């Protein structure tokens, strides 16, 4: 049979020579190999104290963005929900009432916005679909939880901290991930 | 009553008591374990007689090897306390007669014992390894060699039985 690659090695089925039958040279060779590993560099990182930097394209937990004045960007257009291949996003739209201008950027906003983190595959398509730079993926993991229903993240869980009231937390949540340029 | 006598009595009690337990216990595994205790008591007696070599060999060979094989067989046969193999009264009668005869002989032997020197310690050095070796290889060479031939034949026999299937082909 023609081999597809030249990676396959022919098994040597020749009877063992006396030295091979002794096994001791092979054992000593193996022990030397394990011994050499004492001096190798250890790839482990002491996790909670030291964290590995995320790659620039890392896609973590979603965050609902606000603008510089702290108004929610989302207009509940539903494009993210349509784009989502795992159908993890649901939302309900509502109209902005007079006097709520400091809360919502546009006339329409999401009254309810839920992402099922058990369904989400963190593909980032919602981020790409969003015309208002309202949703993007941050640099955090979804934390473990005890119940399935707690993985359905509501709007309160997803909203980014207020940039004026809590600037430190806002910047931390924003992370270093390159933002999509909105027009 | 000195310490040696107390130790002797304790060991004897242990030996007799555990042999009784060995006979009377219903589960074969317990019997085997009690028998091991008997061997330990007897090894203690050997040490009292200044025969440390015999004592330790008794433990290595009997307690350490042969009884393990016994235990092996009993465990693999899965004998439980409920399985009482012998229900035949005629067989039990034969057992009683045979055991009784042995008991009579032992009683006769015990009656002949010099009770004055019941407990002796550190007298006689035939059990020490050097003297034992000298005795075996100088005074008793012939019996020793004959018994080793016996063992050899037993070993060959075991190999032949083990190889039976291959030979018959």
């Amino acid at each position, binding site marked *: 049979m023609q081999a597809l690659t030249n990676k396959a090695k022919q098994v040597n089925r020749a009877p063992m020579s006396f030295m091979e039958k002794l096994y001791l040279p092979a054992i000593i060779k193996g022990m030397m190999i394990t011994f050499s590993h004492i001096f190798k560099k250890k790839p482990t990182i002491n996790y909670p104290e030291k964290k590995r930097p995320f790659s620039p394209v890392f896609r973590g937990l979603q965050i609902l963005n606000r603008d510089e004045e702290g108004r929610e960007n989302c207009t509940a257009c539903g494009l993210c929900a349509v784009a989502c291949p795992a159908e993890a996003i649901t939302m309900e739209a509502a109209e902005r009432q007079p006097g709520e201008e400091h809360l919502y950027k546009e006339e329409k906003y999401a009254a309810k916005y839920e992402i099922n983190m058990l369904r989400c595959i963190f593909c980032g398509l919602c981020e790409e679909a969003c015309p208002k730079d309202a949703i993007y993926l941050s640099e955090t993991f979804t934390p473990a939880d005890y119940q399935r229903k707690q993985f359905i993240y509501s709007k309160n869980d997803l909203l980014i901290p207020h940039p004026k009231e809590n600037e430190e937390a806002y910047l931390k949540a924003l992370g270093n991930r390159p933002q999509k340029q909105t027009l | 009553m000195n310490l040696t006598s107390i130790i002797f009595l304790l060991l004897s009690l242990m030996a007799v008591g555990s042999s009784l337990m060995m006979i009377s216990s219903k589960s074969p595994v317990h019997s085997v374990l009690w028998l091991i205790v008997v061997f330990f008591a007897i090894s203690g007696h050997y040490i009292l007689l200044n025969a440390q070599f015999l004592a330790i060999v008794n*433990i290595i060979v009997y307690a350490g090897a042969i009884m393990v094989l016994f235990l092996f067989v009993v465990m693999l046969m899965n004998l439980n306390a409920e399985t009482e193999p012998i229900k035949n009264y005629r067989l039990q009668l034969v057992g009683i007669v045979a055991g009784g005869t042995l008991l009579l002989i032992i009683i006769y032997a015990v009656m002949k014992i010099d009770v004055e020197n019941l407990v002796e310690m550190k007298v006689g050095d035939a059990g*020490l390894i050097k003297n034992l070796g000298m005795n075996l290889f100088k005074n008793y060479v012939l019996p020793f060699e004959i018994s080793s031939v016996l063992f050899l034949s037993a070993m060959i026999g075991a190999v032949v039985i083990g190889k039976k299937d291959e030979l018959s082909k």
Partner: protein
Amino acid sequence: MMLAMDFAFLIEKLILIVVVVFASLGIAMYTTFAERKVAAILQDRRGPNRAGPFGLLQPLADGMKLFFKEEIIPNFSSKTLFILGPALAMLTACMTSAVIPWGNKVELFGRSIDLQIADVNIGILYVFGVVSLGVYGIMIGAWASNNKFSLMGGLRAASQIISYELAMGISMIALLMVTGTLSLKEMVVQQQHGYWNVVYQPLGFLIFLICAFAECNRTPFDLPEAENELIGGYHTEYSSMKLGFYLFSEYINMFISSVVMATLFFGGYDLPFFDESTLAPNIAAIIGVAALMAKVIAFIFLFMWVRWTIPRFRYDQLMHLGWRILIPLALFNMLATGGAILYFGK
């Protein structure tokens, strides 16, 4: 005769026993830690480093965990035997240390104290006898578990230990022919004045080493607890501190067999190329104990090193190695030693 024994002598021995037993327990404890650490280092990992500085309190944490685990005794098992099993395993593991010479004489309070609990003239046979009893702990526990996997593990352990005991005994006979004594103390004294026994008995040492691995149920001979075939092996049904005793006795066995190998073949408490007799006895004794411990640590490291290098044998390979390679080799070694002694008239 025994009552006439010196009272101070009795106390001295009692203290020595307590020290030796606790020292071997402590060393075994830290051997469990070293096992995890060495395994980690050989596999390019870090190993336990959370409990205390460098993870040094890890064995305590492990022990505490075992103590607080729920204790389960199977319903149909024989309760006494079920408890007797781990107790025996622990007892036989600790008993061996009685005849080992830990060092030279120490002079304290105007008394010259031997650093050996009992210098019996059958020392090495005593070690052998206690080792041969070690299998009972495993077998009794395995049978009392009333579990097929446990029983199979116990039977494997028993047949393995009996098989390798033979080769071990025969290799030991060759050593005894060289030394001409059964007392471990005298063997060490001989090696202090001459060469170490490993020079005379390299093949015997190799056989002894392999058999020691098998007797301790260490990889590559850890078939009694082959988890992928027998779940946990003989201690499948054990939990809590009883399981702890079984696991712990393995480490004590490892320590003791390292001590025995160091004493028999590597000069015991002898420091090579150095004459201890020029020093004050107390300093010489401390150096001797330190030398013995260094050798023991080297052996324990070897045990672990082999564990993370050589995979487990198949059962037929184990039996083949024991009966058809090691025993003939040991017999040949014995004959060759006898011939050499006759020829050179040692």
